[in-house]
């Protein structure tokens, strides 16, 4: 499989007076279309690692290579552009824009990327809405939706630019069991149908068991990198 993401000796230290090492010497690779979970306890450094590979944060040292591009050497503008093109984000608190409708929220990454809101783009957004079971809610304000619906809109937003990698940080942390199951089923469906790679941060081992590969982080170190078929064996 083609390599999508590679980290090499990734390190992140916060603060200067009292330096705290959040991530240390983390190296792993992700291939196109992989479905991976990143587990660890609260404060283990999993969100920091996700922010580093999502180009939201810069490493103190080490490399982040995305589709062959050395992202760790890039400036803020380049990172923003690469983030827009290659990565779709799904956060625990969905982070929708309350000023915009469901459709506009989904279209936002494309508009930021410079695409025109034309018929073709709207048709694709409509397909995503259908796929996510959100048809009929296009013009609703993002604030008028339930928690599960909001998270599905956030998923739609992560898909609109046909990103090769979706990074999800505790995406079901605020959802009930039914909604959690629905969201994971959706992730799987997207992974299979669109070939999108997923890196899902969770502290729930039960959820992690449903992914193909599990990365475990403890005190900032990557302590386990196993494929699920070996776990179940």
């Amino acid at each position, binding site marked *: 499989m083609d390599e999508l993401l590679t980290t090499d000796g990734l390190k992140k230290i916060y603060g200067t007076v009292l330096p705290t090492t959040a991530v240390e010497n983390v190296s792993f690779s992700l291939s196109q279309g992989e479905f991976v979970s990143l587990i660890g306890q609260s404060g283990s450094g999993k969100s920091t690692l996700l922010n580093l590979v999502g180009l*939201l944060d810069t490493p103190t040292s080490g490399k982040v290579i995305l589709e062959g591009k050395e992202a760790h050497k890039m400036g803020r503008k380049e990172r923003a552009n690469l983030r827009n093109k290659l990565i779709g984000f799904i956060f625990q608190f969905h982070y929708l824009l309350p000023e915009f409708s469901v459709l506009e929220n989904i279209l936002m990454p494309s508009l930021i*990327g410079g695409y025109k809101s034309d018929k073709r783009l709207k048709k694709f957004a409509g397909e995503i809405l259908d796929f996510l079971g959100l048809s009929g809610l296009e013009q609703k304000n993002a604030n008028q939706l339930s928690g599960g619906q909001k998270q599905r809109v956030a998923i739609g937003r992560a898909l609109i630019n046909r990103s090769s990698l979706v990074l999800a940080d505790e995406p079901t942390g605020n959802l009930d069991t039914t909604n959690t199951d629905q969201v994971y089923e959706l992730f799987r469906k997207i992974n299979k149908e669109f070939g999108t790679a997923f890196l899902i941060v969770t502290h729930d081992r039960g959820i992690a068991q449903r992914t193909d590969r599990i990365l475990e982080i403890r005190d900032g170190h990557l302590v386990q990198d196993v494929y699920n078929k070996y776990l179940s064996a």
Partner: protein
Amino acid sequence: MLSLHIAARFLKKSPIQSLLIVAGISVGIAVQIFVGSLIASLQSYLIDQTLGSSPHVTIAASKEGESIKYEDKLQKILKKDKRITAILPQRTLSILYRKGSESAPLSLKGGDPKSLNSIYRLSKNVTKGSFKLTDNSILVGKEFAKSFNISPGDEIEVTLPDGKSKILKVNGIFDLGARELNQSLVFSNGKLPADILGFSKDQYSKIEIQLADVFTSTKVAKEIDKSFTGLKISDWQVEREDLLSGLSAQTSSTIIIQVFIIIAVALGIASTLSVSAIQKTRQIGILKALGMTDARSGTVFLWEGMLLGLFGTGGGVCLGLGLIGLFQWMSSRLETSLFPVEARLSFIAISAAIGIAVAMVSAIFPTRRTARLDPIEVIQSG
């Protein structure tokens, strides 16, 4: 234009806040337009009242009491100068009016009636009788006529400088708005003083000039002085220094008032936009996480400033014009008429441009704050 679209949505999302800031800019610009127009109109009214019916530059012979020749060269130069609006070659002599035991010294000023009218606005300032001047007819001032109970059509006897008497017919009574002039000045055509003084056709006592812009008098006077020798050029800015300093003080105070209005408007916009930028930190962080660049996200608040500036200034221009209209309507209803307030298009355009520019400059602080915002700050804070 995504930044503009986002800016418009941010403003629409908080309608009360947006309306308040638009109202704030509108009031500031309206006050700016109204106060500016009021003071500018007051100034031009004062200038008109004090200098409108008097010469701005006077050309006389360098020796006191001597006459000057209004030669072709001087005529050409004066007539060619576009800054000059009126030229009055005039002859002046002192005469004495006696009635019983009372007497009054008068200054008789004679010139071409059309030229006299162009400087002293006799067609407007003659309040009784006719402003027309025929041979041996004169126009007298309001105070003089009142003192000696003189009416248009009356004939008065005056003593000339050589001691001889002459009968003159009063055609009209003028009011130049200055008591001293109304008491002592008498107008006649140019022939009457020429005959008395024995002046030739091109011989005059003085040449009086009026200018389109009264404040160019010193420059014009200097230029004439350079071109001719043996002439004494005087201008109102030197002769009436007190009036000039009063007008200058008024101009300075107007500028100070307008600067403070602009500062107040700028602070209002800057503070509101800053609050708005803080309120929208989360949204800006999300947009940046989705790939919006620092520069582009910063322009959201520049657009907000622009939109607020445009709507606020538009409202301010309408409100300002409304206030001027209200002032005009009120002054027309009052018994004592106030000075007319004129809404000058150029001043309104400048005020509007300042309003928009101030709104945009006020947006710089939130724009910079937004540009610096790191999306991780928002994502980590949850």
